[in-house]
């Protein structure tokens, strides 16, 4: 297992991160137009000074390796549009909020999605299946930026049960988490149902039933291990989607997370700030994907005993 993990980190995680830094850095630096271009024409001397201050007068490879060196020290560079602030300072307080939102949304999606999916697979084509899958279908068709405002309008403004602004009390977290997580709960429910159905049709399940195990043990003790593999594989893309999907929810519910940083930054074309956010999320994704691979390998020994990668 340790060897598997090390192999994954060296041959998958590291190249991915390098590609990501190179790709996004080149994209930012080779794009036409100066990052300082504004409505008003700046005098050439000012531009030159700005370029020198931020080290943008160096050749691109030098800039890239300097940036990479900075990353290793945890330095994401300066913000180009908010002078005096570093990218790290700007992200610092927002990241934990977004991570918390994403974590709870994922947890909610997993609990709801797995329950619905397993329930549906136990009696396929029964009424429970029909209800669960209809809910899942509805969930897939209502994106968070529609669900969020609807929930806020219904439970917040009309009924007045739950707060619709801010990120202070536990109650503040309920509506944003539901808005963000529901669509993923729906995907997970469909994947879990498919995976469980396939697993439940295998021979070893018939054996387990034949030797008189209770249905609960057959499902939760045996079939679940194989049946949730599609769900686990989906967690990587899901986490990526949750982190970026959080931007929308943060805007709707006025939550001080990453969305409130990256969206204005993209509009102002604050390139280093957006670059920093992209790399940070990229690193998080790579870490998370590695974790998912380890869980998959643990669930299915064939993966880790296979060719290694």
């Amino acid at each position, binding site marked *: 297992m340790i060897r598997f993990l090390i192999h994954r980190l060296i041959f998958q995680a590291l190249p991915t991160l390098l*590609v990501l830094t190179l790709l996004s850095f080149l994209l930012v630096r080779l794009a036409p137009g100066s990052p300082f271009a504004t409505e008003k024409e700046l005098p050439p001397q000012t531009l030159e000074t700005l370029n020198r201050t931020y080290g943008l007068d160096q050749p691109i490879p030098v800039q890239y390796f300097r940036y990479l060196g900075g990353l290793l020290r945890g330095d994401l560079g300066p913000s180009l549009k908010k002078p005096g602030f570093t990218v790290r300072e700007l992200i610092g307080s927002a990241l934990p909020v977004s991570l918390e939102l994403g974590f709870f949304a994922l947890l909610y999606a997993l609990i709801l999605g797995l329950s619905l999916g397993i329930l549906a697979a136990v009696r396929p084509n029964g009424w429970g299946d029909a209800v669960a899958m209809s809910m899942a279908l509805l969930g*897939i068709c209502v994106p968070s930026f*529609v669900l969020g405002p609807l929930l806020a*309008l219904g439970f917040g403004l009309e009924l007045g049960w739950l707060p619709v602004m801010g990120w202070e009390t536990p109650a503040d977290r309920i509506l944003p988490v539901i808005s963000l997580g529901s669509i993923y709960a729906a995907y997970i429910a469909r994947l879990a149902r*498919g995976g469980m159905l396939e697993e439940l049709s295998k021979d070893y399940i018939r054996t387990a039933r034949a030797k008189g195990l209770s249905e609960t043990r057959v499902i939760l003790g045996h079939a679940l291990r194989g049946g949730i593999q599609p769900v686990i594989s989906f967690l990587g893309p899901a986490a*990526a989607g949750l982190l970026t999907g959080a931007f929308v929810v943060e805007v709707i519910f006025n939550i001080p997370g990453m969305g409130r940083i990256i969206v204005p930054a*993209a509009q102002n074309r604050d390139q280093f700030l957006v*670059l920093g956010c*992209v790399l940070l999320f990229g690193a998080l994704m790579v870490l998370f994907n590695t974790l998912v691979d380890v869980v998959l390998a643990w669930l299915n020994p064939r993966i880790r005993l296979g060719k290694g990668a």
Partner: protein
Amino acid sequence: MKKKTETYSLRRDAWRRLLRNPTAIGGLVLLGLMIVACVAGPWVSPYTFEEMDLLSANTGPSSTHWFGTDELGRDLLTRTLVGGRISFAVALAATLVSLVIGVTYGGISGFMGGRVDAWMMRIVDVLYALPFTLLVILLITVFERNLILLFVAIGAVEWLTMARIVRGQVMGLRHQEFIEACQVLGYSRARILFRHILPNILGTVIIYVTLTIPSVMLLEAFLSFLGLGVQPPMSSWGSLIKDGVGAMEDFPWQMSFPGAALFVTLLALNFLGDGLRDALDPRREGES
């Protein structure tokens, strides 16, 4: 013309199965209506999407403005339909981009096999782990925002899964007798791949296309909602929902109608997609 023998080709068989599936047909009809409305509606409408009438700003649904008006008195129905054009156009164009890249890449990778395949798939694995929505945002940050860029950026993001699926299918077909026959006949590799292998995996590709379109639509709406996609005064469903959310407390219809349009379209696409999957891949019928 020669006499035709009565055989059921896979494609005809699939059609028959699709036509017997009421939800799939419902989805198809709904989607068709939506597209017709979005394409033809703005021509028929007495209003244009940017025509302001401040005297009748923020009015509710009525016989003159079926969906009501927005804060500048623009007709919301017309704006929703025009927004639908944008959403469908982005979805189709981006899906087409992803289709071309994905099928070509996956086809070549699966057909060549061996070392080429291993490297090509390793590249896909690496790209797969990147936060692509963010790369699109980065692209938008770096370049001036325009629609064409949005198409290309989204399409360039969505091809990876297509490539993987196509590769798997191509690998399954590569050693079949009819392909060996083509090789014996001395056909070029490109001809075998594009004329003989790819038509055989059309079914799988269609299934995946019906999955890609809604996800592309969602991505466009997501970006427009954040103000990073379609720019005013142009409208798309995402930007209309954003404007509606701002006025939600007082004028809830401004959010509901574009939201409902997006919902209905996604629902129709999902019905159709599920139906197509059951029709083209009968072995998996009933699964989700």
